[in-house]
């Protein structure tokens, strides 16, 4: 209260400073002041106060029950790995119990404060944003003294090396983060595991695929041979995943320069959407449409995976394939364009 009274004393000072360029309207609404104090039911009626007390106690009791439920749920549904479904009930009852115990405590405390604790109004005035003149003068004095005592203006060697050190400080960060930029990664984004002679194998087993095994209307999810032996195989899979489909060769509308890229109606396209990189694998056998589940980009597989709907901006890259002497499907080369989402340097 003493704080508030002190502010009351300072009240007159407020008018020392003018309002600057602020326009003070003459017909501004007057401060209506505080609302009249309205006593609560519990203040006037002892029965109501009694009731409120019981309500608060009930909420605290619910909190206790919640804590017990949480412990019961944890013990009654142990997560042993033998029965995975226990996870559901374990999490459910531990969660419900802890929620009840926290909410019961919180609701009880708020209800207690709102109904039973004193509710008289207090007013606190805002202090002025400008400091007292003495404080301001003292601050200037301290700054000047620091300048004098450090000798920053006199000792030129220290000043120059200090500025030099500050200038060099961010350089490691620039070098480190520079590798995140386009200059450091463009090769990684252009090159995948596919190369001349790499066999097309099944995802996830890595068993090579014979052309004769790809029946009409079949879809194979394909990874390059050797991917499963890599330590960072997901990094490579993210770029090299391919969808292999066999259609009636008559429906393929292949341009001259891609005539040799398919094998008897078997075509291979990158599975990574050129929009934001989701796996495009919703293949419709009769319409030859490939649909991306994330943003509904639709590619026409019969027409070089041209975009026929949705936000993707370019066709899915095609992997040129052929067969080796044993009849297994192999790649002729890497993709001839970058796979995945388009980026600036393309």
């Amino acid at each position, binding site marked *: 209260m003493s704080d508030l009274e002190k502010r009351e004393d300072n009240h007159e000072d407020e008018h020392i400073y003018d309002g600057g360029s602020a326009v003070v309207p003459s017909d501004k609404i007057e401060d209506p002041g505080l609302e009249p104090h*309205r006593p*609560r*039911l*519990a203040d006037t009626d002892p029965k109501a106060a009694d009731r409120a007390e019981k309500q608060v106690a009930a909420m605290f009791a619910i909190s206790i029950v919640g804590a017990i439920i949480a412990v019961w749920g944890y013990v009654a549904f142990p997560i042993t790995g033998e029965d*995975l*479904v226990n*996870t*559901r009930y374990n*999490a*459910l009852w531990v969660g419900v119990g802890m929620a009840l115990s926290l909410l019961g405590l919180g609701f009880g405390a*708020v209800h207690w404060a*709102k*109904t039973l604790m004193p*509710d008289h109004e207090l007013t606190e005035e805002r202090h002025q944003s400008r400091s007292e003149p003495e404080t301001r003068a003292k601050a200037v004095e301290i700054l000047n003294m620091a300048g004098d005592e450090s000798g920053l203006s006199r000792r030129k060697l220290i000043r120059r090396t200090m500025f030099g050190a500050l200038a060099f400080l961010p350089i490691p960060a620039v070098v480190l983060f520079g590798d995140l930029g386009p200059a450091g990664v463009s090769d990684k984004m252009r090159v995948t595991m596919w190369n001349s002679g790499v066999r097309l194998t*099944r*995802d*996830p087993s890595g068993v090579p695929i*014979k052309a*004769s*095994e*790809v*029946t*009409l*209307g*079949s*879809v*194979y*999810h394909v990874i390059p041979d050797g991917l499963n032996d890599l330590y960072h195989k997901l990094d490579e899979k993210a770029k090299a995943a391919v969808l292999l*489909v066999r259609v009636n060769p008559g429906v393929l509308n292949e341009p001259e320069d891609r005539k040799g890229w398919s094998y008897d109606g078997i075509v291979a396209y990158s599975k990574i959407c050129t929009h934001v990189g989701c*796996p495009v*694998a*919703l*293949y*419709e*056998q*009769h*319409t030859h*449409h490939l*649909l991306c*589940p994330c943003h*509904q980009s*639709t590619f026409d597989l019969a027409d070089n995976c041209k975009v026929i*709907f949705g936000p993707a901006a370019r066709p899915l890259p095609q992997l040129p394939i052929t067969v080796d002497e044993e009849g297994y499907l192999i790649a002729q080369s890497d993709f001839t364009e970058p796979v995945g989402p388009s980026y600036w340097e393309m």
Partner: protein
Amino acid sequence: MAEKKSIRRKPWATSLVILLGLILSGGGYAAATTTVQNEASSAELVEEGRKLFLANCATCHGMNSEGTNAGPSLIGVGAASVDFQVGTGRMPGQASGVQLRKKPVQFTEEQISAMAVYVASLAPGPAIPEERYLDNTGDANHGSMLFRINCAMCHNAVGAGGALTEGKFAPGLEGVTEKHIYEAMVTGPQNMPVFSDANLTPEDKEDIITYLKYVEENDSVGGFELGSIGPVAEGLFIWIFGFGFIIAITVWLTSRAN
């Protein structure tokens, strides 16, 4: 003396001899010609299937199953295809549209198998799967991995189904029989691609079916499924109930006690 009359002379003796003769000759003939008769009954089944086909299917699929503008050729689709399409009620189709839907089955088991035998007799194609692949004794864990790679993009990770283009959709797999799931994989009905035995072996298919039945029969590990359709249902739930609850609490917190 009449009592001592030889059996030969009794009035029913002739009938007995004729009956014995008939049984012996008939039984012997039957034993000798079992295989021939089986072929004959199979031929009858094909004929019965052909009649059912002509009466119910030929309008769209052609008198010789060669296909018309209204329906594809059935030569080489195999018994599995007929069993799936007719056994789930998708065929005979009711109205043309982007996708034929499941509806009450129109034929008896016998009629369906007769039609399946007829269509299979036209050209070799996928057969109705063997029982041993349908008893859910596969490896659900391996099946789950194969399902996620080959099926989940359309049918959803737990087989809840999902949307395709232009009103088509991948149906939910809950409640579909093991046999029909197998047949769908091997034949690729409508816009579903084919997963031949060279791609997913019969054992792989068994694993996938075992996984789907495991999911169907056990409660979801992750809590309430809300249709298992992912962020839309979950987001809607949290926007309505989660934020609704928070707003209600905020209103209560800032209100004055009366």
